[in-house]
């Protein structure tokens, strides 16, 4: 980055945070080649990461209430917004040797990883929200894994009397499970995301599309593409005869699949359009 420009950013940042004094050279080194969207916030975060106490005080003073107010909108009952802010601060204050050392030879703090892409209060807010959900999920449920065997067991329930059919169904279950998982993994990232966000997480189409930079109509188009590619890939991996009856059965299968994956939402329908 051009020296004059860095100096200009540094002067602006100093004006924004008059109580925080951090040398130009340290800021320049922290900035590197990056062109952050929020260089002022990067300044105070960098200073805090280099253990300048006044920077921490300034952050607390400027952003604490802003973050807490937002957290209070939907803070978990088991963890108050105030606690979440404190926990987020504590997480940001962790030693982070991977990010480098200060001039005194001690590790910089975790907040030094902040890149200035989003405003610093939203970074704290995201940290606090992550802490809340992470804690909740660890307590409520452990790692889940639905194995192919478990899927086969479901398939087996109505065929237990016939060993030959049982074996055939197991084989079928393995083949299909493998095909579906591989097909999903082969989809491009944004298609995977759209399928999961809309059908599994119940995110609105416009919201899900906005996350990946798509307009609502583009989202619909990409969603249909994702569904079609998923089905085509499964068909490709499990080739064979394809009749109108088979297609209808697959269509029913996909719809059932999305219905079951979507979280129950008593206020509105789980998904906005049929799959496949």
């Amino acid at each position, binding site marked *: 980055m051009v020296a004059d420009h860095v100096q200009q950013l540094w002067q602006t940042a100093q004006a924004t945070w008059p109580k925080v004094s951090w040398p130009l050279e340290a800021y320049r080194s922290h900035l590197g080649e990056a062109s952050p*969207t929020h260089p002022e916030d990067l300044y105070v975060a960098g200073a805090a990461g280099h253990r300048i106490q006044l920077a921490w005080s300034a952050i607390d003073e400027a952003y604490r209430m802003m973050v807490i107010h937002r*957290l209070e*909108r939907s803070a978990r009952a088991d963890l108050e917004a105030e606690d979440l802010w404190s926990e987020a601060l504590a997480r940001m204050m962790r030693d982070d040797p991977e990010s480098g050392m200060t001039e005194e030879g001690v590790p910089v703090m975790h907040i030094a*990883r*902040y*890149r200035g*892409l*989003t405003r610093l209060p*939203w*970074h704290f*807010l*995201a*940290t606090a*929200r*992550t802490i809340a*959900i*992470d804690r909740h*999920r660890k307590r409520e*449920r452990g*790692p*889940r*894994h639905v194995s192919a065997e478990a*899927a*086969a067991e*479901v*398939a087996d329930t109505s065929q237990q009397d016939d060993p030959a059919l049982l074996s055939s169904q197991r084989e079928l*279950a393995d083949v*299909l*499970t493998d095909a579906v*998982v591989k097909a*999903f993994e082969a989809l*491009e*990232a*944004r298609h*995977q*995301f759209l*399928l*999961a*966000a809309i059908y*599994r*997480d119940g*995110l609105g189409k416009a*919201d899900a599309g*906005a*996350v*990946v*930079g798509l*307009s609502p109509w583009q989202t619909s188009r990409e969603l249909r593409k994702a569904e079609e590619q998923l089905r085509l890939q499964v068909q490709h991996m499990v080739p*064979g*005869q*394809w009749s109108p*009856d*088979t297609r209808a059965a*697959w269509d029913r*299968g*996909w719809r*059932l*699949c999305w219905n*079951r*994956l979507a979280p129950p939402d008593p206020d509105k329908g789980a998904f906005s359009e049929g799959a496949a």
Partner: protein
Amino acid sequence: MNAMIHPDPIDHEVVISALRDAMQRQAGASWDDLNIESMAVLAQGRGDELPPRERALLLKRIASDPDLGRLLKELRADIGDTIARPAIFVPRTAIRLAWAACLVALVTVGVIRLGDTPTTRTVEILDSGSGQAVFLDELQESNGSTLSTLAGDPIFVSLLVGVVLLGAGAFWPRRSSNS
């Protein structure tokens, strides 16, 4: 489908389990290495500001971890309203409609103006010097060529500028949103 795979309702259960498995591959996995700032940027709908590889990995990770999906959803509720979209991001559909309307108006005005252009005609007048009748050509000729006629028309010029500007706004290539 080969003969072994037939349209049996059981198949759907298998497919459901398989997809659920695919979408929950990382459920319960540690989030210690999660880049929270990138999640916040994504939640603000500014994912195209992330390095493409990082963005793709993050999207895939969210797709395979329902709790991350929930986190993203809550972050959007928290900070989704913090993005003030500048006027330049007015949906392209609206800009394209305006461009099309402007183009139609431009053509219409052009046709009307050209139709209105006075034609050359010859008029017989009496020359006071010689006392004879002479023919004076192009008494009502247009000032300059057709183009200069249109160029002098403020409405036409305004529409032309509008078509160019709106066309640039409507069809200027965006950064790819591919992951």
